[in-house]
């Protein structure tokens, strides 16, 4: 079985919801998710953020869907850490 342990995402989002609410929404997806959000650039209506998610088994599709539902747009997956384990 292969588990995704860490992903670093490049996201464009509106100013609202703010960084705290955005991180919380992602963290709420999993029971042991640890989210680290960094604002890279702030424009008039948007901001570019880097989000790092760590967990024992990250559900990437769910994270992507949550990002879209709160108004963000996933631009790229910048880093991934995946671990293979015996079933």
């Amino acid at each position, binding site marked *: 079985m292969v588990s995704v342990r860490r992903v670093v995402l490049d996201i*464009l*989002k*509106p100013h*609202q*919801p703010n960084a705290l*609410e955005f991180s919380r929404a992602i963290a709420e997806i999993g029971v042991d998710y640890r989210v680290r959000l960094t604002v890279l650039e702030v*424009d*008039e*209506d*948007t901001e570019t953020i880097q989000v790092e998610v760590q967990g024992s088994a990250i559900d990437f599709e769910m994270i992507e869907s949550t990002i*879209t*539902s*709160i*108004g963000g*747009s996933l631009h790229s997956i910048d880093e991934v850490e995946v671990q293979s384990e015996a079933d």
Partner: protein
Amino acid sequence: MSLLHQVRFLLRITRTHDIVRRYFVVNGFDGALTMLGLIIGFLLSTSADLSVIINACLGAAIALGMSGLSSAYVSEAAERKRALGKLEGAMVTDLQESAHGEAARLVPLLIALVNGAAPLIISLLILIPLWLSSAGIPLPLSPLYAAIIIALLLIFLLGVFLGRIADISWLRSGLQTLLVAVMTAALIYLFAGH
């Protein structure tokens, strides 16, 4: 997410919670002053039947409610649509299925409900003594005077609410709005009292 939490979230991301508060006070004040004006007008007129006064006031209350509902919906829907379009342009993506799209659909409805309900509910509260009297329940004073007192009290309370928003003296703010009501009554006496 609970409904209340969802509503607060949508108001926050569209930064419209202050608009809801402002509409509540502005249109609530409208309702209270309109009822005050109508009731003083009836007091100064030849004695009309209580049911006539109630129907006239109720008609005005419903009209105020509908006016508040429709005008706020039309204007807010246009504003939210414009804001969403601007955001979609900046994001270069379709936000219809996101929280922002949901907010653009629901926030105008919520604001319209507050804008319509505020004058309607305040007007209905002012009319309570008139209904009680027409139902045969004895009141310590004339129903029209009792309605005026309730109107003045509600106007004072709206001022208190404004004072709390602005974080200034609630008493001073309440007295300021009360002064507006007293001036309105004085003007009605001046122009309609002859």
